[in-house]
């Protein structure tokens, strides 16, 4: 089994963060400039799901936190809710690994959609809990669904790119240092 050295993790993290910054700028500035204000896909979720699905490194939790920190520069959501949810997702992936299949585009889309729904349930719950108002729970949850469908459809291509960034294909699934 392959190992990820500190250098590879550092490089992968930098490249992933740069990709996220480009996508965040696209979402926050370019789409609104085109008049698309109500459609804001959360690419940070897709990146965290990729890390959770495909990387097996002891520092995974910190990587998720870094991704969420970069996201917090473009959103007042902050890093904490996403980091908490991301670590929970990565822990659940460990137990569901045998059931997850990324061999075809369709299976990738389905798996990503299921985990996105779980993500939005968790974040909507945490946000409602934080705000002390569960009246908007379903609204918070449903408003993310159209974007999540778009992200799921994009996920095979997106994972293909991130596979190259993290060299997952040549290394299969990496293992701890």
């Amino acid at each position: 089994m392959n190992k990820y050295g500190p250098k590879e993790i550092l490089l992968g993290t930098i490249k992933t963060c740069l990709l996220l910054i480009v996508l965040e700028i696209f979402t926050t500035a370019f789409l609104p400039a085109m008049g698309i204000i109500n459609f804001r896909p959360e690419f940070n979720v897709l990146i965290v799901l990729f890390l959770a699905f495909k990387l097996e490194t002891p520092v995974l939790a910190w990587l998720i936190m870094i991704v969420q920190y970069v996201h917090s520069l473009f959103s007042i959501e902050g890093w904490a809710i996403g980091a908490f949810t991301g670590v929970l997702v990565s822990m659940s992936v460990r137990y569901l690994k045998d059931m997850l299949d990324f061999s075809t585009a369709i299976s990738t889309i389905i798996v990503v959609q299921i985990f996105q729904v779980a993500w939005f349930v968790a974040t909507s719950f945490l946000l409602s809990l934080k705000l002390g108002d569960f009246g908007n729970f379903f609204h918070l949850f449903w408003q993310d669904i159209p974007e999540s469908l778009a992200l799921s459809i994009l996920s095979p291509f997106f994972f293909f790119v991130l596979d190259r960034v993290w060299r997952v294909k040549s290394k299969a699934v990496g293992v701890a240092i």
Partner: protein
Amino acid sequence: MKNFTVDSSRWKLANNIIVVVLALWGIAVQNYSLKDVSTFEAFLIEAFAPIQRGALSTREKLANMLDHYVMIVNTSKDNAELRKEVKALNNQIFEFQEVKKENERLKQLLQFGKEIPREKVLAQIVSWDASNEFKVLRINKGSADGLKKMSPVITMNGLVGYVYRLTPNYADILTILDQNNRVDSIVARTRTHGIVEGISEFKCRLKYVNRTEKVEVGDEIITAGLGNIYPKGIKVGKITQIDKENYGITQSIVVTPSVNFHKLEEVVVLIEKEEKTENRDVAKEETNE
């Protein structure tokens, strides 16, 4: 190898626990009404915001390209030079028209609210928040321009929100569409008090209005001036839906904001005169240091 795996899984578990605990602490201390930024965060926001701002000019260039180049691919070569000149002139006219429109908008904005005893700072929208859950705008003015946290933000049509997060050259505005922004308001016709709270999708809700109050669809909502954030009398929106349930003591009132957030390009930040000079001095000192 076995020992190695056990060690790495323990390390992973330890990391997971540390990050989860940190995240729980982060959630606990996160404030969705007002935010302080660290120097590092301010530096990163300052670094990325100009790129976000650049997206606006990219749009104009793309629109120009589509309008003036792609549509004329099949024109004959004989007319190419003349058409180029016409295109250049058209581009110039287009740019002049845009500048004229912008000037008119800015003039109207500056003329607006003369009766409000505060200094006005014009700002342009740079970007929107990356999360759907939050309705936050980023503008191209910051503490160096005299802005302060919780400074109210308006347009000539009405209330936009207040300054939530601030860096020297940029500021994040928590709009009235966000559920974390609560505006103490009154119904202009009946002087009924209530709290306007965002419910997203460009609608707000007027809460805590007693069901015996005779408010009607079309009634205008203005700021009450309480709460030390917004000056009194700024338009918030109009009542567009009222639901009186058979139970409960309040009415469910939906308010459509006066500001068209779809078409928002420039805003005015209201600041106290003393605040402005003080902040500028501080920003200057920081720059000198």
